[in-house]
Structures are given as structure tokens and as C-alpha cells.
């Protein structure tokens, strides 16, 4: 028989212990990351900035992505929805752009998209688990669960997410049947083309790029093209100091 004293001790431990466990899991990122299974790929992208800049004004990858995914074009920065786009080096890598960096480099376009972070802040804040991290490292949106609270947009340090302030359908040039649109009131972003990866295809942006600036592959594969590039050339990531572990890498 348990006496009253032992019972109270046990009760105290369980009351304190139960939340402590979930706090511990949260802090260590356990419930978010999960173990990587043997043989599971871990997708990543390498962007070669010089090669990308070799074709000024090019929008091949952006157009390819936005057309197959039914991304609307509002032509209005306030409502803008984007999965992949460009901005200047100076804006994207402010910590690298001191006044002695040449104007040519500072104004170079940098391709930006969701970084599919290993440690994604958007996933931590989503109250409905509409955004989650798959075992292959892809940070996915489950549009069916999105309630439009936009916590993920506030949490993302890269501005990689867009909100549908209006019904997007009238602003899609040609609606593609193969991929659902979104509605007013949901957040959207790049998915590393998971629907194409499932068919063994590369992401649409990588396929559309004619300057060979984009390389996509598996970080868990020691001989993959991405691993070779990352091992042989100096590379940077956006705001790596935040500890989000982005999986889009840039060669300067």
C-alpha cells in the first residue's frame, strides 16, 4: 500500500514532470525534426549567383514555378504572392555588403525561395500544424488545415511566405488543372516541388534554368552534385547565425 506521503510526492512529480517533458522536447526540437530514417533523402538547393547573373533580367525559373503552381500575379506589392523571386545581393546579404564590395556584386540579383530550414521557426508557431517538416526535410504546407492566422509569416526570418488577401483565381493567367489553386485567407510558399519529386522529376525552377545556376540534390548522398559543390566551393546561407539551418546555399 502506498502511504499518503508517497502518494503526494508522486502526484507532485507527475504534475511538474508532464509539462516539463513537452517543454524539453520543444527546446531540443525533437517534436519538430524527428529522426532522419536510413535511406531518406534530405533535399537541398545550391544557387550559383554569378551564373544566375550571366543572363540579366532572366525570369525563366520564376515563370516556370508560378505557372505550374497557379501562383496569382496581382501586380501590386501589397497583395503580392510569390514562391520564388529575386532581390539584390545588398538586400539579401546585408551583413556581407560593406561599402567596399563592388556595385556590380551589390546589385547582383539573388534568387530567393523557402529555405526549407532544418529548424523551421514557422513550424514551431503554427497552431494547427498546417505547416510541418517532412522526413526528407521539406517544409510543407497542408493548405486544408491553414486557418490564415499568419503566425508562420511573422516567424519566418526570410519573408518566404505570402498571404492571399484576395481570391487568387481571377489573377492567375492560365489555371493549370494538375495543381490546385489556393483561396483567399490561406498562406502559401514554395514546396521544393514535392509533387514533382514524387515522380522523380527535379523542381520546375531547376529544370527551367538555362544558365545552370541551380543545382538540386540529396545532402545525405555523399557523392551528390550538391555535396560536391558545397565541399569544393565557398558558400553562404541567409542569416545562418539564427540557427535555422537553411538548406538553400549560395555560391558567390
Amino acid at each position, binding site marked *: 500500500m502506498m502511504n499518503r506521503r508517497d502518494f503526494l510526492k508522486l502526484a507532485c512529480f507527475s504534475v511538474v514532470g508532464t509539462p516539463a517533458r513537452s517543454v524539453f522536447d520543444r527546446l531540443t526540437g525533437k517534436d519538430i525534426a524527428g529522426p532522419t530514417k536510413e535511406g531518406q533523402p534530405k533535399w537541398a538547393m545550391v544557387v550559383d549567383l554569378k551564373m544566375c547573373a550571366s543572363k540579366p533580367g532572366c525570369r525563366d525559373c520564376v515563370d516556370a514555378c508560378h505557372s505550374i503552381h*497557379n501562383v496569382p500575379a496581382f501586380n501590386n506589392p501589397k497583395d503580392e504572392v510569390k514562391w520564388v523571386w529575386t532581390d539584390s545581393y545588398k538586400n539579401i546579404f546585408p551583413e556581407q555588403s560593406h561599402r567596399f564590395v563592388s556595385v556590380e556584386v551589390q546589385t547582383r540579383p539573388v534568387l530567393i525561395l523557402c529555405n526549407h530550414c532544418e529548424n523551421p521557426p514557422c513550424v514551431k508557431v503554427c497552431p494547427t500544424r498546417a505547416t*510541418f517538416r*517532412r522526413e*526528407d526535410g521539406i517544409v*510543407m504546407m*497542408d*493548405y*486544408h488545415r491553414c486557418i490564415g492566422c499568419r503566425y508562420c509569416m511573422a516567424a519566418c526570418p526570410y519573408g518566404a511566405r505570402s498571404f492571399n488577401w484576395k481570391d487568387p483565381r481571377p489573377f492567375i493567367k492560365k*489555371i*493549370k*488543372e*494538375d*495543381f*490546385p*489553386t*489556393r*483561396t483567399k485567407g490561406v498562406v502559401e510558399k514554395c514546396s521544393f516541388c*514535392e509533387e514533382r*519529386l*514524387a515522380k522523380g522529376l527535379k523542381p520546375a525552377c531547376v529544370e527551367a534554368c538555362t544558365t545552370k545556376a541551380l543545382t538540386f540534390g540529396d545532402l545525405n548522398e555523399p557523392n551528390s552534385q550538391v555535396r560536391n559543390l558545397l565541399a569544393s566551393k565557398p558558400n553562404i546561407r541567409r542569416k545562418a547565425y539564427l540557427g535555422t539551418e537553411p538548406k538553400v546555399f549560395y555560391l558567390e
Partner: protein
Amino acid sequence: MHDTAKVIAGIAVFLIVVLSPVWYNTVTGQASYVPQLKLPTDEKYCVETAPYMRTNHIELLELWKKIVVRTGKRIYKATDGKTYTMSLAGTCMKCHSNKADFCDRCHNYTNVQPNCWECHVVPKGVKTEATEHAR
């Protein structure tokens, strides 16, 4: 205090008024109305059996959605061993190409308004009702 006749007359009027829709439907034959569904002509079987689909297509679609979005897998193995790509627009609508006289007709009868087609794109050539969201 002998208003029995008035009370009975009142109850009779009340019953006639309240039950009039039932009588109307019985007399005009609408009580036995069930929507006539247009089934696919070039296919004999659904993904699962028809009675199962009638009651469980909601759960089946929910399951498909979960598996595709959460795990990335896309092949569904039906009870009879046949395999299907798990896609609402791509698989269901390929066979049920008359959405207006199938999904829509039954959903109108049962007053169900799925919001799926606000995002999912009805393939070309599929007949839909001309409602706002073509439910």
C-alpha cells in the same frame, strides 16, 4: 366552460396546416423522390464498392488527402488489389466526368457544400453546375 367543439376544431386546423407539406408531397409523388445519378458508362466499378462509396467517400477522400500531403505517397491500393493515384481532380473526376448530374446532384439533394473546388480545379470536359463555386 363547454368549448370542446372549438378546441377540437382548433386542433384539426392546426394539424391540417402543420401536415400539409407531407400531404402535398405524398399526393404529388415527391415524397419518394431520390436524385437520379448519372454513373460513368465506360467503367463498371468504383475505387471501392458502391455502397461503401456512398457512405464513405468523405473518409476516403480525407484519407487520400492526408496520405498525399503528409507522407508524399500517392498510390492507393484498393480492397480488390487495384491501385489508383490518390487525386480528387485527377482520379475521381476522370471516371465521374458528369459532376453536375452526380456529385452536385446528390450534394444538392442532401444540402452538402464541399469547399474543395474553391482550390481544386475541375478538369476540362467535366460537366459542372453553374453555381458560384460549382459545388
